């Protein structure tokens, strides 16, 4: 080994930290990715963890992983395969080996590779013999024992000592990629402000990990990933759920309304409720309801009083909210529903990602019950689409379902802090105070009714779930009136299309294949297409954020290309929706239902195959 370490510059790196769900891998990954972002890299992350809070220790089912992709160029996905795998035990190796690049690096805690753990992980004998490791650079580090050794005199119990072994691993990786340790140390100081012993312990273990790697020259060279060339501005790290919560806050501020969130904890949507509960400083009222139904019902009530009213949930919760959504359709009150999709049906895969709630969002209610459906496509643009969902709900007096996904909710990336002055105005159609009020009188162009809220003199009125006469607002069972109202509600939603941006395509105007996606698959689709275009293929991407109504130019764009391939993490719900709306075109499909995001490699294969047929 050289005395001097070489420094090698590389474009991008994927690291996966993995261990038992109690090993602190999420924190380790977050600290590493934040450090990288602060360093100026573009970053994308993907946490992958079991639904159980403390899944059986040492088993493959209990493995918690956190993947970080960082680089000098633009990063659109958390990466398929990793350059470095940190495996804190045999189960972590077993669960993740297939995600390691053939020439990758694996760092293991040798202390955890004892017979008991090896058997628990499902290996027959020595995993280092069972896995095909040729080509892999295996770094065997006695992480647990060195952590113990580092802290033997510090005065902590054995359990607490071992809990900081993740920081030893972080130290090793930090050296390998030339990352400064300040951010992590700052974090310890804040997090353990009242426990100085833990600050000392974590800092010491982190530094010892770093020096260990340096001393043994863990790898013959250390890597340097230069800062990315990013547009000027102030940046911060943001994940999808925080971005969603903040987008709603920004919309409330712009509209001059107070924000109300009625919600019930559900994975992976809960952190939206948590974030907004903490935002009382901005006047938010959150109501942790007794169930999903009360979550949306309290929001519905708040909407009646003139608030920007929101409820957040995931698939099973959306199912429970459907009756009240119908009431909001019928009474034409603004209501934003955030549906952070997870694997289904039923309880399904609570912590995994999927796009299979689309039909539920579009049609999962009794009667003809049209509403607006939208989808965010990156962690940070959850902010923009939450803002737009609120704007459309308020200005068009309608419920809006914004679909995000587990993959966006927990994934994070650097985000240039936006200038809110550049965001469009939000002007709810409040009834003029000095004019007579009729609740179902509609604007002739938009078919939107006016909003009068309790407390306004002379605008007293009753809303309800029964069909009504638009002239008087009174209950009506007249057949023709029902038909008229059903069509009016449908047409009102169709006319929202006038207020949404046209669908844009990325890639080649004269592409041989149009790739179609919606929601969280954007980063993977774009990366796959960019990479294949570099190989000379002619491809274009049409990615949908507005689903109902569809952008007005959708049909025209679909017709512009010879072939269409719809890629989704479900069995083809959006493809079928397009077939229904534009039956004149044939659609090919690429679908995965693994509870995981696409891999760029799989997408590239699918695209190549579809070009051949």
């Amino acid at each position, binding site marked *: 080994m050289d005395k001097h370490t070489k420094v090698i510059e590389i474009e991008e790196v994927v690291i996966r930290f993995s261990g038992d769900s109690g090993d602190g891998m999420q924190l380790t990954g977050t600290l590493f990715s934040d450090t990288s972002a602060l360093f100026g890299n573009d970053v994308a992350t993907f946490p992958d963890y079991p639904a159980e809070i403390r899944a059986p220790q040492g088993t493959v089912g209990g493995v918690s992983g956190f993947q970080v992709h960082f680089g000098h160029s633009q990063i659109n996905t958390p990466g398929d395969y990793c350059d470095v795998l940190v495996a804190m035990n045999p189960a972590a190796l077993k669960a993740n080996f297939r995600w390691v690049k053939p020439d990758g690096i694996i760092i293991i805690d040798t202390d955890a590779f004892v017979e008991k753990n090896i058997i628990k992980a499902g290996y027959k004998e020595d995993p280092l013999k069972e896995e095909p490791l040729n080509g892999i650079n295996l770094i065997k580090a006695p992480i647990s024992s060195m952590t113990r050794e580092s802290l033997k005199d510090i005065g902590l119990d054995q359990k607490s000592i071992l809990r900081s072994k993740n920081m030893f691993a972080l130290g090793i990786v930090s050296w390998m990629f030339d990352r400064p340790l300040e951010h992590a140390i700052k974090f310890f100081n804040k997090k353990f402000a009242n426990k100085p012993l833990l600050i000392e312990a974590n800092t010491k273990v982190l530094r010892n990990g770093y020096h260990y790697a340096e001393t043994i020259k863990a790898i013959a060279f250390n890597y340097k990933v230069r800062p990315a060339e990013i547009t000027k501005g102030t940046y911060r790290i943001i994940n999808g759920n925080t971005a969603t919560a*903040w987008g709603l806050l920004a919309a409330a501020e712009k509209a001059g309304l107070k924000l109300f969130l009625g919600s019930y904890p559900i994975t992976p949507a809960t952190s939206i409720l948590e974030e907004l509960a903490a935002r*009382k400083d*901005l006047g938010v009222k959150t109501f942790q309801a007794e169930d999903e139904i009360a979550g949306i019902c309290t929001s*519905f009530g708040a909407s*009646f009083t003139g608030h920007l009213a929101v409820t957040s949930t995931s698939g099973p919760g959306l199912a429970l909210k459907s009756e009240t959504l119908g009431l909001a359709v019928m009474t034409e009150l603004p209501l934003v529903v955030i549906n952070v999709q997870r694997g289904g049906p039923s309880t399904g895969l609570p912590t995994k990602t999927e796009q299979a709630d689309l039909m539920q969002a579009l049609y999962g209610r009794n009667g003809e019950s049209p509403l607006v459906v939208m989808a965010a496509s990156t962690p940070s643009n959850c902010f923009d689409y939450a803002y737009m969902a609120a704007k459309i709900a308020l200005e068009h007096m309608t419920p809006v379902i914004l679909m995000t996904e587990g993959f966006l909710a927990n994934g994070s990336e650097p985000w240039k802090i936006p200038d809110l002055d550049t965001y469009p105005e939000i002007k709810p159609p409040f009834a003029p105070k000095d004019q007579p009020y009729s609740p179902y009188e509609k604007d002739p162009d938009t078919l939107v009714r006016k909003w009068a809220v309790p*407390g306004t*003199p002379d605008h*007293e009125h*009753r809303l309800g779930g029964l069909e009504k006469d638009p002239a008087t607002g009174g209950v009506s069972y007249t057949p023709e009136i029902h038909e008229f109202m059903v069509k009016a509600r449908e047409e009102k939603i169709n006319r929202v299309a006038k207020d949404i941006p046209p669908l844009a395509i990325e890639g080649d105007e004269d592409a041989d294949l149009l790739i179609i996606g919606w929601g969280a698959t954007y980063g993977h689709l774009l990366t796959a297409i960019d990479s294949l275009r570099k190989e000379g293929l002619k491809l274009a991407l049409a990615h949908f954020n507005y689903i109902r109504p569809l952008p007005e130019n959708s049909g025209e764009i679909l017709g512009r290309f010879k072939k269409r391939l719809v890629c989704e993490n479900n069995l083809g719900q959006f493809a079928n929706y397009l077939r229904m709306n534009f039956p004149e075109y044939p659609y090919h499909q690429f679908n995965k239902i693994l509870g995981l995001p696409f891999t760029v490699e799989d997408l590239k294969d699918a695209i190549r195959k579809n070009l051949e047929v």
Partner: protein
Amino acid sequence: MQEVTQLKPEDFKSDQIVRWCPGCGDHAVLSAVLKALPQIGYKHEDVVFISGIGCSSRFPYYVNTYGIHSIHGRAAAIASGVKVANPNLSVWVITGDGDALAIGGNHFIHLVRRDVDLNVILFNNRIYGLTKGQYSPTSEIGTVTKTSPFGTIERPFKPGGIAIGANGSFFARTIDSMPKLSTEIFIEASKHNGASIVEVLQNCVIFNDRTWADITDRQFRDDRVIVLKHGEPMIFGKERDKGLILKNSQISVVKLGENGITEKDLLVHDAQTEYAGLHLSLANMEYPTHPVALGVIRSYNLPTHYDQALTDQVREVQQKSKIKNMKDLLHSGATWEVK
């Protein structure tokens, strides 16, 4: 709250034709509410009625205030949202035994637990009227209905037992045919800070006629009910010759004058005490062993109720926090400059 004296009951009446069956107990409750509204001190536009589904839930259409005729069982949850969002409103929930205690049972108990400052009028006719006569969660064992042709085998709920058992702060009971008492109770419910539950024993002439007749028929009503008044001894009877005492930790009926019993031996009603044990016993009294308790049975003002506590908490946090607007929030915590 403002003092508004000039409003009259007619001012709260809407122009809608009232569609309840002739003779339905709901009519009398409506007029008792219309009489109470001018006296609760709220402006017309600050009153909101929220109902669920059922015969009584048509109610909001007949009062000329803000209102929502919502969906089955959810009125308590929707009204909680209305009140929490805007605590300046006087918010009333109109519900029935099926709406509040079957499909909406969860929202009902949680409304009571949170003590949101709402006024709930629970029309208890012990039957599903709108769906034409099926037994409800308050129907007595053995009730023969279309869905219990051989008699029900389910034990009924008592709304008072649930409300007080769930640590409710206010429970009162009235009878549809006693509109003056109803009006008084509705005014008390409005004054109470917290969730006020008022059970109205209501007659459904079509599907469950005379369900409460044992106690409500005028000829013997006064001997079978007791109207409780805070601070007054528990006396009842046409001749005001009967009373309630506590004996072996149980409430017993005694005759004044017999065995040397005088008014001084009787229980004195304390609706405002925190201790709910006696309130629960009073609310659960049944004819024929006891008179059925009417009036305000429990009215305990907690130091604070949900909507007020939330408003206070928001204000406190706003005073302390450095984050005053979105811009502050966006730039809070770890950020970095790219130059």
